Every structure is written in structure tokens, then in C-alpha cells.
């Protein structure tokens, strides 16, 4: 139990430190190791869904390239957190300004969520990549490679990351559970995999949350997943379906302000909520909602305002609720 003092987030604790520890994405890992052997590293683009190991592989690559004190040689940026390309440029410039003494003649710049940059910002990024090539290499990380402009794609070695296989996720979860002295039910680990859909980070987070309550059982897994979702999401959906748009809008505001959720987070959580088995909705209604939720998510990605877009969604949901109750009365 002495480990309790060092109790930390498992997602970080069990992140593979070197490429040898990465069990998935075998081809990618192989190619990367070759780069290190040859000492010839191109600019790279890591693309794939969340939790498939993009950041992990980037960090492990840096570790294997520079050794244990690799942090000194890398700059980690997250495009969705930096305020615009100018801020990124300033930080990159500052970082790449100094040459390094050592066996590797360049530094590494890891730019996460690069697909969040606008097309203009990506053009600026492309020029930056050319400008700093003598001293630095870029690893761009993106969920949607199609949102990275052509000129950048053509200047990078592109690596595709695929969702993790079930047996790999489960064996990792078992390893962690064993190491942490956590009792678990096999079925619970399968439930975790189902919920996380191949997203390793999410899977580990669910395991850690469930383990905080003792033994990891199927019920416990669903319980913590329920707890992690603000209950306001479901309340908001229900209020709208019952025709109370104004109260639903109040819930939305609470979610955005108290939980700091973005519009995208809210619409994604709505999507996962409606497909839960205890959600009292017809199959047809679920599909209709998913369709319009997808439309709203697209509008948000196009640059729509969080509250306006979600209000439009809630107004639509209110209307759907009304139509459904009329239908129900007619059939009765």
C-alpha cells in the first residue's frame, strides 16, 4: 500500500516509454526505428483516431532518438491550445534558434491536433517547416488527415494509426490491473473495451475510475462511466424531448460553464447518451437524433458558435419530442 503516496494517473504511468514497449502499430514502429538507425529523420504526420498512440509513439520516438533526457530536445505544442499561428511561430522560432551539441543534429517539434489549424495557418506552418529544416524536424499529429493541406501532406512521411485490437487493449488492462493489485472480472474488461472503442487512453481511464471503487465488475464499469458523464446531458435531452426548451437551454449553459465543456464535447456526449440501453427512445428516433447531431457537429467544426449551434440542436430535439408524442397518441 505504500504506492498510494505515488498514486498518479495511470494513463501517464503506463504510457510506453520507448518504441520497444509499444505493442501496437507494428509497421509504424518498425519504420521509425529504421529512421533512428539511419539517423535520417523526415518531417512526419501521425494521423488516426484518439487514443491510438500517436502522442505516445512521438514521445517514445524522441526518447529512443535522444535518450532519457529527451525532454530538452523537444518542443510540445497543442494547436488547439495555442492562440493562433503567430504564437506557435514565436515559440518554434525561440526553440529552434539554438543549435544543439550531440549526436543528433536537430531538435524535434511535436505539434498535436494540427488539424485544428485553419488552412491559412497551415500554409504558415508549411513555410515554417521549410525554414527550420536545418535545425528541426516536425511531427504533426492529427485526428483527421484530410484536414491537413496537401502541401504539408506531401512534405511529410505519413503514418496512419488504427484503433487498437481488442486483445491488445485487454491484455494491457490486465497488466495494469495486476501491477496495481486490482481485482477484476474478465467481463468488466470487455465492457471497458466496448465503451472505449479502441481508445486506449479512455480504456485506462475507465479502469482507473472503476478500480477506485474496489473490485472492477461490469456494474462498477457502467457506474463510473455514468458518473463521469455529467448527468446534465441526459437531463438536457429529456427536457428538450418533453417540450421544455428553455429549461434544456439552462442545462446546456450549466454544462458549458460549470464543466467547461465545449460545444463539440456536448454534442459527442449527447450522441453516446442516446444510444445507451436505458434511454427510452425508439430505434428510429435514435437514428434521427444521431443524424442531426452529426450535422451540428459538422457545423461546429466549420466554425459555428457553441451555444447557437447547440441551441439549434435543442430546438430541433424539442420539435422531435412534440412529433413523437403526437404519433404516440395517434397509435394509442
Amino acid at each position, binding site marked *: 500500500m*505504500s504506492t498510494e503516496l505515488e498514486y498518479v494517473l495511470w494513463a501517464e504511468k503506463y504510457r510506453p516509454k520507448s518504441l520497444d514497449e509499444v505493442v501496437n502499430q507494428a509497421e509504424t514502429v518498425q519504420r521509425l526505428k529504421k529512421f533512428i538507425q539511419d539517423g535520417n529523420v523526415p518531417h512526419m504526420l501521425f494521423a488516426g483516431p484518439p487514443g491510438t498512440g500517436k502522442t505516445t509513439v512521438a514521445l517514445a520516438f524522441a526518447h529512443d532518438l535522444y535518450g532519457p533526457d529527451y525532454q530538452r530536445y523537444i518542443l510540445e505544442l497543442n494547436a488547439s491550445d495555442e492562440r493562433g499561428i503567430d504564437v506557435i511561430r514565436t515559440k518554434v522560432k525561440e526553440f529552434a534558434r539554438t543549435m544543439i551539441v550531440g549526436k543528433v543534429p536537430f531538435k524535434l517539434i511535436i505539434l498535436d491536433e494540427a488539424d485544428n489549424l485553419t*488552412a491559412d495557418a497551415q500554409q504558415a506552418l508549411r513555410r515554417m517547416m521549410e525554414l527550420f529544416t536545418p535545425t528541426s524536424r516536425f511531427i504533426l499529429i492529427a485526428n483527421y488527415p484530410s484536414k491537413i493541406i496537401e502541401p504539408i501532406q506531401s512534405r511529410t512521411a505519413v503514418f496512419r494509426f488504427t484503433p487498437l485490437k481488442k486483445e491488445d487493449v485487454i491484455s494491457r488492462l490486465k497488466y495494469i490491473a495486476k501491477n496495481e493489485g486490482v481485482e477484476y472480472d474478465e467481463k468488466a474488461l470487455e465492457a471497458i473495451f466496448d465503451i472505449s472503442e479502441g481508445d486506449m*487512453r479512455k480504456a485506462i481511464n475507465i479502469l*482507473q475510475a472503476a478500480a*477506485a471503487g474496489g473490485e472492477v465488475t461490469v456494474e462498477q464499469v457502467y457506474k463510473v462511466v455514468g458518473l463521469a458523464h455529467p448527468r446534465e446531458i441526459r437531463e438536457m435531452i429529456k427536457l428538450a424531448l418533453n417540450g421544455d*426548451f428553455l429549461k434544456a437551454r439552462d442545462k446546456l449553459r450549466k454544462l458549458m460553464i460549470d464543466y*467547461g465543456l465545449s460545444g463539440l464535447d456536448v454534442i459527442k456526449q449527447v450522441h453516446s447518451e442516446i444510444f445507451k440501453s436505458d434511454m427510452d427512445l425508439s430505434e428510429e428516433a435514435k437514428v434521427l437524433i444521431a443524424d442531426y447531431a452529426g450535422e451540428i457537429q459538422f*457545423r461546429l467544426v466549420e466554425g459555428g458558435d457553441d451555444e447557437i449551434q447547440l441551441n439549434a440542436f435543442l430546438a430541433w430535439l*424539442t420539435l422531435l*419530442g412534440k412529433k413523437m408524442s403526437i404519433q404516440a397518441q395517434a397509435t394509442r
Partner: protein
Amino acid sequence: MSIAVPWIIKYRPKNLSQYVNQEEAKAFLSAWIKEWLRGGTPSKKAVLLHGPPGVGKTALAEALAGEFGLQIVEMNASDFRRKSDIEKVAMIASKARSFDGKPKIVLLDEVDGLSGKEDLGGVEAIIDVIKNTKNPIIMTANNAYANQLRTIRTMNEVVLIELKELHQKDVLEVLRRICEAEKIFCDDKALKTIHERNKGDLRSCINDLESIGRTYGKVTLDLVEKLLPYRDRELDPFETLRSIFFAKYTWQAKSAAMHSQLDFDTLLQWINENIPVQLTEPENIYQAYEALSRADVHKGRIIKSGSWDLLSYANDLSTAGVSLVAKKEKLKWIKYSFPAMIKMLAETKASREKLLSAAEKIARNVHVSRRTALAEFIPLIRVIYRLDRNKAAYIMKSLNISPDEAVVITGEQEARELLEKKLSELAALAKKREKTEKTSKPESKGYKPAGQSRESSSKHSRQRTLF
């Protein structure tokens, strides 16, 4: 005959009882000034009076000064472009008291007249003055929600007071009072028409009354209808919305947006706020939002691509699109509300900032974006806290989360004490460990390889101190 003083100055209220209506504002302001008079500096150092033109913002500041016999130092915000003037006001404001020991009222008129870009320095100068003042500051603005006022509006030292549009009753009372004092005949219907033409703008009403009364010695409906021009001015937010929702033809809705005080962004927020208040049918609410949502997407594309010629499409949808839907309903006359999100964001700034700073720490630690930290890791810690508070506390400690941040992460006040307790326990433990390490060092050195032994022996000692 004495030199004619314009009625607008001649009949300015000398004290609060002569000032009609706005009872809430009056009550707040006199309590606030009394606080200053007691000799302290209240935590709220400045007031931002806002409301439509001619509603009596400046007059209220002057009536307040008259009521308490205070000197007033007035400056129009457009003067904030001149450095020497800024310095003068800043100096007066920061000086403690005048000779009589009373504070002075510093009046900054029309602060929304500063333009965001050219007068950036002006906004900063005002912020500085507010921070350093030892005297009450009153600012006035037509539109407190103008973009350039965002920083001033959200300062902790600033209180927003809205002056409501004057009712016909109040306007007529003032006009009648003036007619009596000037001994001229005033037809009630004429006064009502003056009020209608000026939409609650008392200043224009008095000017109109004077322009007819002085020349003709009487004010009749006949004269008013013949002589009074319609004033062409910008529409305030309420008028803008009314014109959009009540438009008979789509061009009226479009023109309302064009002549509005609100910029496009803020107009979207106002429409967003008021659609479900003005409309009642779910079908219509949805359709209006759909139009607004599409307008908003156009706006997003404009920002991303820089193609400003898309703006006209966005405009069409948000005005004409919404008004077409509104035509399907019999509309009620309602009081429109300020966009709640703007207010809520301002009010919850402090706790949201803590949440963000916590997210920032987590993001750096686990190599994700702040958004992911907010959406995935903060809920995780919250769940762990509910199941095992100690574990959550250790995680937060490992992430360098402060006790204040722990409160916003967990949503529980007790999280603060818990984390504080853990932190002090750990500090004590670390000290103890250092001691035991020192004493245990010599004995372990003999038979174990140096590097490992220290680690394992310290682990043992840790266990001993724990149990």
C-alpha cells in the same frame, strides 16, 4: 431678458428627488456614495450606467453629485485619446480627498465611444484609472455590451447598472412640469406624440418641446405634427430585435440589422437569446434557430477563410430568415433580454479560470490538449474523488493542483481542506524520511549496492511511518 438657457440644462434635476423613475439605480447609487463618504474605498470603485440615449445617465450622475454636494470631474471618453487629459483625470482620481474631506465624482461619459482598435490605449487608461482611484467613478454608455468594453465590464471593481427605457408616464410628468414652469399651454396629446417620436429619449423630448414652445408659446398636437421631424438614429438592441421579429417585409429586418448599434457577432447573440422568448411554437423556434445556425456557420467560414463577401449571406439568414419564421406567429410584445451567456461568462470568470488552469496542468502532465483535459481527465478525477477521496487527493497532488483548483475540479468545498491536509502530511513525511534516510544510511551502505539500497530502504522507512 436674461440669456436663454437651454431647457435641457435649466431643468436638469438638482438632486435625486427631482430625478424621475429608476428607483433601483437611485437606491444603489446613494448607498454606494454613502460608503465613500464614510471615508473608505469600497470594493466596487466604479459604476457603469448603461441604457438608451436620453434616458438620463449623465443627469443621474449630476443629480447624485447635487444630492450629496459633491464636486464632479467630467471627461468625455473621446478625450482619452489625448495623453495630457488622461493624466489629468488619473491624477484627480488617485488623489485621496479634496479640502473638505469629501470625494469627487469622476464622470467618464460615453465610454462606448472609444473604438476598440484605435483607442486601445484609451481602454487601458480607463482600467488604470479604475484600479488606482480613491474617488467614485461613474461611466456612462449606450451599449455596455460593446466589444471594446469587455475588459472594463468584467472587472471586479465595476458594477453595471442598467437604466430602463423611460415610460410614457415619466416622460409626460417631466414635460408637464416644464410647461408649468415656463407658463406655456401644452396639449396632452401633443406631449404624447413628442414622446412617441422620441421613443423614451427624454433629452430629445425636452429639446422638441423647447423648439416649439419657445417660438409659439404653446404646444399643440397640430404644431407637433407639422414641425417635428423624425430623428434618424441607430437602433438600440431592443429596437433592433423588435424590428427583426416584427418586420412585415424582409427588407425591414435586414435594414434593422444595418442600422443597429450591435455588431454582427453581438446581434447573433441577442437573437440567440430571444428566439425562444419571442416565439412559442416548437416548429417556429426550431426554424428560427436553424436560420440562425446557418448564419453562424457562414460567419465561421468568414473567419476561417477571410472571405468577407460571405457576410451578406450570414446577414440575410440571421435577419430575414428569422423574421420570415416570426411572421407565422401572432407575436406578443415582450421585454427582450440581454444575452445570458455573456453575463454568465463574466460572472463565473474566476472559477472558470481556475478550472482552466487546472486543465492546463493536467494537459502538460499527460500530453493532451486543455480541451481533452477538461472533457476526459477532470471528470475522471471527479469520479475517483467520489469513490476514494484519498486517491483523488494524491492524484491532484501529483499534478500540482492547488487546493482552490481542487474545489472546482471536484465541485466540493471539502476538497480544499483534504488536499491541504494531504499536502502538509506529505511535507511532514518527506522531512521524516530525510531524517530516517540519514540515520539508516550507514548500516545499509555496507552490504548493498549503493544506488539501489537507498531506494529500497527509503521505501521501507516510508512504510514504517505510514502504519
